[in-house]
């Protein structure tokens, strides 16, 4: 058998009925989940800053204790998936992740791993969302890999509404979000 990684293809515009039939997968933390509640609004934008209305966003994150697939926190689901709406928006209900081990055993700042799919994206793009003003950001090694003037594209910002954070994800254009080669 040919053992080369199979080629990626775009998701296409008509995936909703199969992958995002409702908004249930946007609720990542049940009432009993541990940690600080976060309502995370992600807006997906194109080169002109216009909303991408047929994108799909997936999140992957650790529990509040900093553990992926945390058996001690069954009310928390580390995986979330939503389609963007007519404003290019989707709203995840989750908790702030804890710190997980990174390179050379150092702890990483709290972050959420993001995959983005859309028609016109021949393969997913991968980003990370960090939380603005978290004291651990300054020493985070992955944030440190991005050019300094682009690091703000990786930060979700707290709004005046308690627990509500906003993150604009620019696929390209002057504010292009930092994407990773993983």
């Amino acid at each position, binding site marked *: 058998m040919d053992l080369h*990684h199979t080629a990626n293809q775009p998701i296409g515009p008509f995936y909703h009925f199969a992958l995002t039939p409702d908004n249930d997968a946007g609720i990542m933390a049940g009432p009993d989940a541990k940690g600080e509640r976060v309502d995370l609004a992600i807006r997906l934008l194109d080169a002109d800053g216009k909303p991408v209305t047929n994108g799909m966003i997936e999140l992957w994150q650790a529990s509040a204790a900093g553990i992926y697939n945390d058996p001690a926190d069954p009310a928390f689901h580390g995986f979330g998936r939503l389609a963007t709406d007519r404003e290019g928006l989707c709203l995840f209900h989750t908790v702030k992740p804890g710190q997980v081990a990174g390179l050379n055993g150092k702890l990483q700042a709290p972050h959420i*791993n993001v995959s983005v799919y*859309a028609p016109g994206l021949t393969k997913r793009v991968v980003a990370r969302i960090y939380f603005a003003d978290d004291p651990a950001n300054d020493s985070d090694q992955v944030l440190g890999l991005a050019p300094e003037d682009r690091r703000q594209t990786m930060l979700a910002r707290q709004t005046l509404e308690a627990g509500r954070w906003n993150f604009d994800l620019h696929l390209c254009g002057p504010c292009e979000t930092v994407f990773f080669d993983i």
Partner: protein
Amino acid sequence: MQKSRLDPDNQPPYLYEPYHSTAKRAPRQPLIFLPHTLSERTGPIFADTLITEADRDLTRQGAGEPLGQRMIVEGRVVDEDGNPLPKTLVEVWQTNAAGRYRHELDDWPAPLDPNFNGCGRVLTDENGKYRFLTVKPGAYPWGNHPNAWRPAHIHFSLFGPSFVSRFITQMYFEGDPMLEYDPVFQCVPDRAKHRILAKFDLGLTEERFALGFRFDLVLRGPDATPSENGHEE
């Protein structure tokens, strides 16, 4: 040593001019090479209790049988070392035999089939094997350029064991004359095209029942950890 994983010889570029909607969506800045941490090495686990036998039989989701050519799609999901990937969630979606999606925004006036939803899901078994029963999808027009038609295809979404292995593609049919004119298929480099073509397989074909097509998938895995190869940093 940082080696790009983008693999331009085998993976499509983000920007592909003939596929027009890439122009306003393709990232232009260089991607940042990310050494794999727990964030990339872990991934969601899906319980098989959520998936029923009916989920992998797309011909039994309505009151009667859907119209079209009955078809078995079977394959193996492995990593780049050939290790089978068991318990991998495989999700598929497709048009009916007439080329129409059961989707509120699909306004192409081909008929809907009351007996066909066009989506299925299955977990791979201990050998990394999956199998669907469905009907052959149809071609459909789209707006990319004058007289543009998508060749018949089935959309595939797979998770694999880690965030790195997460993967979406489309499965086409060997010998379809429309492939040549489809920029979505053509954005894949020539040497990699055969890997997204399903092969007709007489061994999978069931007498007086359904045609068999084989479609194997290879997913990426995380890099070896430094302790495993013993020479990094």
